[in-house]
């Protein structure tokens, strides 16, 4: 048991921060994000024998947190923004370019507004450094679907930055 405790403590101190950021990115509420982290480690302790290697720890913990987030969402009955399933997993047809004038606050505000189905793979890629295949395993969708959602996430980011820029210019 002391060895398990040491392993567990090492996981907590290594990954609590990134887990919090992932949780916050999903739910955008500080207290809920902290609750998600607490719940994640509660479940991780119980399932610790199933962790095969230290190298898999981060994705294992991210997966647990993700599941806990969706459980919370289901329990609360909150309706996250949804997008049409018909066009979700198809690639965009047009070329895009990015605006060159924007602030970090604008980016943060826009990230909040991205649908969860776009925000989640973006967070996993940016925070976790996961490849599309790894994100596909965590989200239990195909790699192609992950690539499409990431592409759309950044397209929508660009589109919303453009709208804000146009709005600023109209002032």
């Amino acid at each position, binding site marked *: 048991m002391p060895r398990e405790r040491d392993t567990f403590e090492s996981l907590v101190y290594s990954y609590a921060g990134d887990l919090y950021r992932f949780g916050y990115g999903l739910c955008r509420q500080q207290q809920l994000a902290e609750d998600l982290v607490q719940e994640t480690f509660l479940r991780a302790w119980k399932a610790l024998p199933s962790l095969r290697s230290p190298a898999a720890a981060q994705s294992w913990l991210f997966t647990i947190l993700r599941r806990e987030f969706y459980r919370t969402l289901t329990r609360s009955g909150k309706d996250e923004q949804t997008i049409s399933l018909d066009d979700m997993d198809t690639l965009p047809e047009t070329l895009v370019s990015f605006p060159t004038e924007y602030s970090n606050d604008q980016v943060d505000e826009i990230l909040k507004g991205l649908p969860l189905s776009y925000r989640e793979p973006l967070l996993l890629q940016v925070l976790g450094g996961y490849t599309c295949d790894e994100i596909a395993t965590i989200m239990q969708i195909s790699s192609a679907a992950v690539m499409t959602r990431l*592409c759309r996430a950044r397209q929508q980011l660009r589109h919303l930055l453009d709208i804000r820029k146009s709005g600023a210019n109209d002032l």
Partner: protein
Amino acid sequence: MNCLEYRRLMLAQPRSDRSDLREHRQACDACARFTEELHSVEHAVRQSVKVPVPESLASRVMLRHEMRQAQAARRHRTVWAMAASLVLVVAGAWFINHYQAPLQTVVMQHIENEIAHLGEQNDVSPGELQRRFHPIGISLGKIEGPIHYAGVCPIRDSLGGHLILAGRRGPVTVLFMPGESLSQRQEFTHTGFIGRLIPTEYGSVSIVGMPGEDLGKIEDQVLPSV
């Protein structure tokens, strides 16, 4: 590779270093500019998602873990205690009449019995603290940081003061025990906590926190005030 394909792939994986992507970028000025702008926005996205992490988050996770373990151990002990209750009642009566547990044991048992308070996040005002500790005749001066809990409770045979402060590594429990005599200071560790017992003019004070906590700093705040 055409520009549409290039941009789709870059939008999905801005940090990709595939050779075919590099080649297209080198051959196409428009896509090279697109890539620069994409990386600039990507940098802003990376900064944006790295929100500040609440202080002592990892310590609070470990604390809650220790609390659950202590509660589980207590439940386990309760099952065995029930099975041997008759023997314990007889032996325990004799034991209590003839033996007094060490103060460290009393302190840790009290903390474990009231472990729920360690998770409280209230902010008790100085005035409220004064009011709550009035029955035990203790008046504290200014204390840095939030006071998450303050109450009077029975500790062994007397009423004592139970205070929980926000330490750097997690919550710190301070017990004021009038009437509990102690011959000398003691430092101790106990299942994931560190603590010290301090003799004072009116009794004893215990300070218990998470490993790595600066108990001396807490002592400097609470002792001169008593």
